[in-house]
């Protein structure tokens, strides 16, 4: 039995996630879509906080909400003119998208509902301490992630360089 407070918090978060997601993909103004995405990401971060993953929630806000969405906004500002609405969707496309999404929803939802009932309670857990997270990231032993960490860092570097190369203005 959860406390009413947490249920209310949960309901707020869940509603925010769903509504913001729907709005992000249906609005015809691209900048608004980015904004809704930002809210959806915030809501997700809130969800992480509620599940006691504070570090993850912080990363989510810092990287996703702070970094990526800013990238989006910049690129939107670079590539479109304010006040532009994207064209109305072709009905065929909308039908395709809707069927796809609904089919997925039905199948996945059915599986979820028919399978996930048995896992009920939120087990007792505590916020993982920062030191542990740091050790796990930097260690090389079993269940430690130095190699992926390094791989990711190299990948990020590659992306930076790649981004620069691709987006560079071609002088000739």
């Amino acid at each position, binding site marked *: 039995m959860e406390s009413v407070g947490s249920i209310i918090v949960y309901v707020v978060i869940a509603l925010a996630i769903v509504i913001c997601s729907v709005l992000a993909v249906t609005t015809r103004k691209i900048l608004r879509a980015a904004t809704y995405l930002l809210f959806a990401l915030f809501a997700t971060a809130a969800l992480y906080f509620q599940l006691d993953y504070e570090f993850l929630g912080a990363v989510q806000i810092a990287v996703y909400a702070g970094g990526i969405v800013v990238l989006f906004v910049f690129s939107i500002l670079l590539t479109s003119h304010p006040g532009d609405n994207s064209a109305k969707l072709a009905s065929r496309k909308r039908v*395709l*998208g809707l069927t796809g999404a609904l*089919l*997925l929803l039905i*199948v*996945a939802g059915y*599986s979820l509902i028919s*399978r996930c009932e048995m896992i009920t309670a939120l087990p007792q857990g505590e916020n993982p301490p920062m030191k542990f997270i740091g050790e796990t990231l930097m260690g090389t032993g079993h269940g430690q992630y130095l190699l992926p960490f390094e791989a990711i860092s190299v990948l990020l570097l590659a992306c930076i360089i790649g981004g620069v190369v691709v987006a560079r203005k071609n002088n000739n």
Partner: protein
Amino acid sequence: MEPVIPIIILALPLAMFLVLGLCGHKMAHRTAGILGTLGMGVTMVLAYITAFTYFFSGAPEFINAEGVRLQYVVFNPEWLSFYKDLAIKIGFLLDPISALLLVVITTISFMVHLYSNGYMRDHHGVWETGFQRFYAFLSLFSFSMLGLVVATNIFQMYIFWELVGASSYLLIGFYYTKPSAVSASKKAFIVTRFADLGFLIGILILSFYTGTFEFTDFTSVNVGKDTFAIDMSAPTAILAKFTSSPAPMFLGGSVLTWALVLIFMGGMGKSAMMPLHIWLPDAMEGPTPVSALIHAATMVVAGVYLVARLFPLYLMEETALNIITVVGALTAFYAAMVACTQVDIKRVLAFSTISQIAFMMVSLGVARPEFHHGLGYMAGMFHLFTHAMFKALLFLCAGALIHAIGSNDYTAMHGLRKYMPITHISFLIGCLAIAGIIPFAGFFSKDEILTAVFGHSIFWYIWMSAVAGLTAFYMFRLYYLIFWWKEHKIPEGHHAPHDQPWTMTLPLVILAIVSCVAGFVPFGNLVTWNGHPMFESVNFFTNLTALDWSVAAISLSVAVIAILIATVMYKKENPLPDKMKNALPRLWDWCYHRFYWDELYMFITHKIIFGCICKPIAWFDRHIIDGTMDGFAWVTQRLSFAIRGLQSGNIQFYVWVYLFGVVLLGAITAICLL
């Protein structure tokens, strides 16, 4: 006997071929001619020595105490081995017929070599182009022919058989810029090749059942080191091998008969027997000395020689011998008929050759040991010998005429007896010899043949006598048309035709003399089918005294009557020939067109083989087989064009398809597993 001389006999012409063929074009024409002639002369002398040693030395390896002539293998090294004991050997077999053929071939070949020195240049002494090549080919031919006659085994014979075919091809096509010569050479090669196919299959059958290629294993038994006597036990053993095999019969004939008939088919091709004779008249496109050497005296008798070589084996199968008789008799008559109407003098001689070779075939076909110790065999070989001499003589005369006149056509000749007396006399001797007038060579041999045929069957005797009459008739028709009649006016500024230089007349004279006296050679003691002599003792007149005068008288009178008819019809220009032609227009027409054999063959080869087999196959290959292969490629390409629309580049479509797949899989999982 030391193998040195036999080796040189084979090696010298080959060496001549290589020397003249490889370095000939750097030599002077005269040098090449002299070299070739000398080489052949030496070969001839060596062949004479060998033959003389064989016949008259009385050495125990050649003749045994009873006076039976033996077969002697001088050398026989292995050339190509197949399995177990089966191997092709290249050897040198001396026996009566090979010794006889050695003499015939080298003599005629030498004459032709000598004669060509004069023939292969024009009246101003300008040499024919390719003169050295001509001598090289002549040497190659001589080598191949010598190799053929001394073959110790049937495969060696086949090898040289092919080689003579090839050298004949090269020589017929000597004037290779002339389309008719090219097509004639091609025809000769292909027709004989077709016949050789039969020969080859015959060899395969024979060698499979007997496990050997050696002639000595087929027909004789070993009586000493390298010496063999013809003995019926050997062919009987062969026959037993066939009859005891799991499948002794095939399509109603015994396998041995089939083998022998197929081998005879090879002989039919080379010897121009009836259905396969069509190449020989065309082969006259070659230079005339070549016709004399190859297409009259030597190569064309290879078929006869082949049958003679295997004669004891043929005795085992009457059917095969009967087939030979019938083919020979039909060919003889057919060729004689055609020869009566031809205009080209070489064609007449060619058909006469076919007819005479058919005589030899008939003679072999009717030969039976029961009748006069196989008289037919001896007569056939005798005729081979005499025919080689007088037919070479006739051809060389024809060559002299053609050289003098510049045409093959008798209508361009007429009345030449005044201008070319030596040629005239030689030709007359040749005609008398072939017509069978006593005492010329042809009389004796032909008379022996007729006797043999008479002993076998009256019907064929009458038939062959008629052919002999026809022979006398067409030869004298030719003689009169060339040398009598009113001569043509000689155009201003031209020389009158005259006898040719000594290199050409000398062979004529020699051969004429030989044609006069060759009939007196006591053949019965030299060449018989089993080596047994026919007479107790011999002298110069043995042949004359041993004559069966009842047969001789009839054939003589037939010949004389035929000559008389020819004289009446053709001595002077008169309307009789035309009258006869008009009386039997159809017959004359068929004879003139050689019974349309060539047209039939043209139809078969061009319309049926090319038109109905080769072309459809080529079409089938290009369009069906290759079309199928291209079709695979086409289908693949079409298919990829058809499905490349799916690769639209529209990522949203891809995602939708992907999603659809995921949902489908998910649904299946959810429904079936959960």
